[in-house]
């Protein structure tokens, strides 16, 4: 019953599948993390802006080279990153929403809370500026105008650091936005939200790094910038190993120390300056948060 003709294709299929599986199994052998070495993995939960701007592509290999740890970067919104920390699913957090970070530092879920860097948020919108917000002194005032003129605003709506800042600004403007034709939520990262704002000709709040990195695809103009309330401040922190025993405490501590080390801070402040003619991030380790933007 097993004639050669019939058997040959089966054999080829078998060899093909086995070769794939063989290769798949080789990989874990090469990396071979025996039980003791598995703590080499450091899970970093962070905001999308650090990944989408390309900063982590520079910093993570440097950290891995220096320390021998392997970083698993999970780029989600700041809100999701903080939730991962609160469940002990991550070892170290790099986020940019101080108002969301303070509670988990205060209740001891996060420790070793360190200022890393800052840039700023900007309000961008169509060149035609239908709500005429260009030149407004404060972001809150600009938001009021957008609301009064009924212009389209595109919100992240994803509980990210940028979304948190946006909500704080609406509060300062005395407005509670509700989803409508004129206030739309994407629920996606900053890059995707900028594309939506571009296509729908709406206003949006963005961090400067993502905006600059995307500038080549955008005709959206910077309309409001420079206010101190718009500072975008990044902190790094360890997830408390006393609360979550599975956390890689040594790896997380090494990452925090790496982020505030002078060499790393130098890389951050020089990152893509040549490409954009201006820094994407300002290194701030050791500074007082209240002094930023002075």
């Amino acid at each position: 019953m097993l004639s050669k003709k019939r058997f040959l294709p089966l054999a080829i299929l078998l060899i093909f599948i086995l070769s794939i599986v063989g290769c798949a199994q080789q990989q874990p052998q090469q990396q071979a993390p025996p039980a003791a070495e598995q703590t080499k993995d450091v899970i970093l939960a962070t905001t999308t802006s650090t990944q989408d701007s390309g900063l982590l592509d520079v910093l993570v290999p440097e950290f891995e080279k220096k320390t021998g740890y392997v970083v698993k970067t999970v780029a989600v919104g700041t809100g999701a990153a903080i939730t991962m920390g609160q469940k002990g699913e991550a070892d170290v957090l790099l986020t940019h929403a101080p108002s969301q970070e303070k509670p988990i530092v205060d209740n001891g879920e996060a420790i070793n809370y360190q200022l890393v860097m800052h840039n700023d948020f900007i309000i961008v919108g169509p060149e035609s500026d239908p709500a005429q917000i260009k030149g407004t002194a404060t972001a809150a005032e600009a938001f009021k105008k957008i609301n009064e003129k009924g212009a389209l605003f595109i919100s992240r709506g994803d509980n990210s650091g940028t979304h948190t800042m946006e909500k704080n600004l609406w509060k300062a403007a005395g407005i509670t936005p509700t989803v409508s034709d004129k206030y739309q939520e994407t629920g996606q990262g900053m890059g995707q939200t900028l594309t939506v704002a571009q296509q729908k000709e709406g206003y949006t709040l963005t961090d400067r790094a993502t905006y600059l990195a995307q500038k080549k695809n955008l005709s959206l103009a910077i309309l409001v910038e420079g206010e101190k309330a718009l500072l975008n401040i990044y902190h790094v922190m360890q997830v408390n190993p006393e609360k979550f025993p599975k956390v890689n405490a040594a790896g997380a501590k090494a990452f925090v120390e790496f982020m505030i080390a002078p060499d790393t801070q130098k890389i951050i402040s020089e990152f893509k300056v040549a490409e954009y003619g201006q820094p994407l991030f300002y290194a701030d380790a050791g500074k007082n948060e209240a002094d930023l933007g002075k």
Partner: protein
Amino acid sequence: MELIWQGLVKAFQMLFALDPEVLEVTWLTLKVSGTATLVSVLIGVPLGAILALGRFPGRNFLVSLANFGMGLPPVVVGLWVSIFLWRSGPFGDLNIIYTPLAIIIAQAVIASPIVVSFTLAAIQQINPRLRMQLLALGANRLQMLWSLVKEAKLGLLAAVMAGFGGVVSEVGASMMVGGNIKGQTRVLTTATVMEVNKGNFDVAIALSIILLLLAYGVTALLTILQQWRSNNG
């Protein structure tokens, strides 16, 4: 239009310059989805055969479950596999989350119902008299099963292709359980999403073309095997 052209140029550059990062991502995609498909075949073919040949209470319910499972949304699978694999989950101690193995598990869950349903259909449409004949010729149960599986090979290879096509193209589960970690769990679909987020549309187009070529290449190979058998058989 210019963007599409740029994307095509970029795809050619990346393919022919053998960009090591792209090769790595492509290779990982093939390994992960290939392994997941193999696992789903190992699970799905026997289950499909049992459902096709067996007569037992609840069989119709199980068949409807398998058919329903063909449309399992990858994000739903991704979420549930994540919940099980997270440190706080029941299998947290195994440290599988954010590894290629996590993606293989999720993709195998996605592909298995597809393989079960295709296998079921393939074996069921074989003339039932063949079974009688085989048994009459003195074949034991195992020999009979093997003959039926060979007889149903056209349909079984279709099952493999459908399973592979289903998992190589999904992004929701890979993103959630794999985390799109550079050099570790970044596959073609998650890399495409990331490049779109970064605004590198030309790279995203290039990756999408590579994904299509990969998916077509594997399917073409399987099709050759499938048709070879039927032409010669």
